[in-house]
């Protein structure tokens, strides 16, 4: 049956006779890889030796056929550095019991207290399955988890999409549920009670770093989070697209940051009050700080709109998000991106983002000793009146092997203390430290 010898040369000669000449190049054909790998390394650094994060992320997408695909995502984060503990600066050095380490640290006079012992490694992952049904619908279900030494999360999500109007309109509906468990170092503190003084810290200095024996504090805490999302994507013309979405989210359970405290100060001098001025406080007389307390539920609503436009060569997108919650926080985010396609293989995408939020109702830069302790109070700057700007760009280069990208961003954040907090000595200090951060991300995306 088998032909006697390879026919390649004879066939090439015959084809040459048919066509006159043959292309010099051989054929280049291979299977398209169905594994799509998107990997990135993110470096994040805040100024003043605050938080540094090194994050490695790998996203795997695999299409099984036109209708079915799955995604797997793994992230490892390593966070180090210092974070504001919530206390206000004063004209004397202040000594605190390290929240996440159990070690004491002293902050020089006049400086915003930063807890230097912040150190964490986080791993996170997710798995999603997407499948089409009917001609125009898809569903997607997934599981998420993350774990770090004092916090763990598991969650599930589902999303349904449907195309109408010759696929010019897509409507989607999503729901996500998550359960988080918080195991603060040394147990969850009793809210609005004094931080133990440096010398009467249970299991104080000398304890192993990051070890949580659960002694002294409350049991582990939990919260659950439910999010609902509904949205529509509408193609407006050959060049433009509009996406609108609304979401509702509700968290309930333990929403405190167990490591955040508030300074209690004299309403006239602005100097720290002392533990013996606080009813029922025990131990050696020292500056008075209280553990924060937040409501045990939070409901958020947000609306999002994005408009994308394609020029002949380039494209751009602008979006806006409005969020409001029952803690009194209202935020607005506006963002614009422009993708400049330099040539067939490279692009440069500058972006700008502006964020502003109002303070939570219970945000207090400091508490005053002459007033009753409020039911809820936090001095976490992330709940203050804040403005933030991001400016950056992403450069991407396509090669035959994949796409390389570099993203560089500069971030600046400024908080405003709660009204009336800059009394006496406090007027001499910056109560919320402005923060600047640089983000560098290196990405490589390829198929195999």
């Amino acid at each position: 049956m088998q032909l006697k010898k390879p026919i390649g040369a004879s066939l090439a000669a015959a084809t040459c006779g048919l066509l006159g000449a043959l292309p010099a190049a051989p054929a280049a054909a291979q299977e398209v890889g169905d594994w799509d790998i998107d990997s990135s390394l993110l470096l994040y650094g805040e100024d003043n030796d605050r938080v540094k994060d090194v994050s490695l992320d790998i996203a795997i997408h695999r299409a099984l056929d036109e209708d079915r695909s799955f995604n797997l995502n793994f992230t490892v984060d390593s966070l180090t550095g210092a974070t504001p503990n919530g206390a206000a600066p004063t004209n004397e050095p202040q000594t605190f019991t390290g929240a996440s380490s159990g070690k004491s640290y002293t902050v020089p006079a006049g400086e915003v207290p930063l807890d230097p012992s912040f150190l964490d490694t986080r791993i996170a992952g997710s798995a999603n399955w997407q499948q089409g049904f009917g001609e125009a619908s898809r569903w997607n279900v997934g599981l998420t988890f993350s774990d770090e030494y004092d916090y763990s999360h598991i969650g599930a999500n589902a999303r349904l999409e449907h195309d109408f109007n010759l696929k010019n309109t897509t409507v989607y509906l999503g729901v996500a549920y998550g359960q988080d468990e918080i195991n603060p170092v040394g147990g969850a503190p009793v809210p609005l009670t004094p931080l133990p003084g440096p010398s009467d810290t249970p299991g104080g200095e000398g304890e192993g770093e990051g070890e949580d024996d659960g002694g002294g504090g409350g049991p582990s805490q939990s919260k659950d989070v439910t999010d609902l999302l509904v949205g529509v994507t509408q193609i407006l013309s050959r060049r433009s697209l509009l996406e609108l979405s609304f979401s509702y989210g509700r968290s309930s359970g333990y929403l405190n940051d167990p490591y955040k405290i508030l300074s209690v100060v004299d309403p006239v001098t602005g100097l720290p009050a002392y533990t013996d001025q606080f009813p029922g406080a025990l131990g050696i007389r020292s500056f008075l700080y209280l553990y924060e307390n937040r409501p045990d539920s939070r409901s958020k609503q947000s609306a999002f709109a994005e408009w994308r436009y394609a020029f002949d060569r380039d494209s751009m997108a602008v979006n806006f998000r409005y969020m409001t919650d029952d803690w009194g926080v209202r935020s607005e985010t506006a963002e614009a991106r422009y993708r400049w396609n330099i040539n067939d293989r490279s692009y440069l995408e500058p972006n700008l983002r502006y964020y502003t939020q109002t303070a939570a109702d219970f945000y207090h830069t400091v508490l005053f000793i002459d007033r009753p302790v409020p039911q809820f109070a936090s001095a976490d700057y992330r709940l203050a009146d804040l403005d933030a700007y991001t400016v950056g760009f992403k450069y991407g280069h396509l090669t035959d092997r994949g796409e390389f990208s570099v993203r560089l961003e500069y971030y600046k954040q400024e908080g405003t203390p709660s009204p009336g907090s800059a009394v006496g000595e406090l007027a001499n200090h910056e109560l919320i430290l402005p923060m600047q951060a640089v983000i560098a991300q290196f990405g490589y995306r390829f198929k195999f």
Partner: protein
Amino acid sequence: MGSPCELLVETKDEALALRVARFAAHEARRIDGKFSRYRHDSLVHAINSSHGRPTSVDDETARLIDYGEALWKLSERRFDLTSGLLRQAWNFDEGPVAAHPKKIPALLDHIGWQRVTWEPPTLTLPEGMEIDLGGIGKEYAVDRVADWVITETDEPVLVNFGGDLRCTGRPPANGAWHVGIESIELAGEAAGRIKLGAGALATSGDAKRHIEIDGVRHGHIFDARTGWPVRGAPRSITVAAPTCSQAGSYSTLAMLQGEGAEAFLQSEGVRYWLLR
């Protein structure tokens, strides 16, 4: 061509895209009209109605006939430009088996390139015989268009006539054309997608239709020596080669090897995807 013909041009030059598309459409219609067996005004129809008289053919037809003759030799007479008569014994439109096997011996008397006198540019076809250039005409049309496009532009262009295709110019922006091939399966996957950076792909066979005769699966291509579809042929074969004509010939000749299709393709050292 009896199938959708498509041209993909990656360019910002609209005039170029239109020019290339117009040429492709014109060339496809011209070749179809000239070599179609079904059209009464075609050259092939004139040859097949010659009743044993010598017919003089133009240079292009002569080159196609030469090519068909070469395939006849290379396939050791399995491929034959005169095998089209077998459609009188086999009717694929009416289901897997709708044959009149008793007709085959009589038909074989009128099949076989050895009976033809081919002295370019004169072809003498004995009375009762006919030739069919359709089997090689489609790939030829793809190559004709591709060769013209190369002289016109270096922009990436993909010429796709009914799934037989060839790309020209530099690779497109994402590095290669992603071609979905319906009738092949890549290892464990439902739909085969191939990245084509240069050259051509051609497919023989049909993954969806089987021909079973007395419980034995047969291919869709006839062995001109026996008048029967090839026993043990793969359902479909896709081959990559520098030109569409070569790719098409490899896939057809491999199909004609039946059980030996893989061994043939391996010994030829070509890139192929095969579905059994």
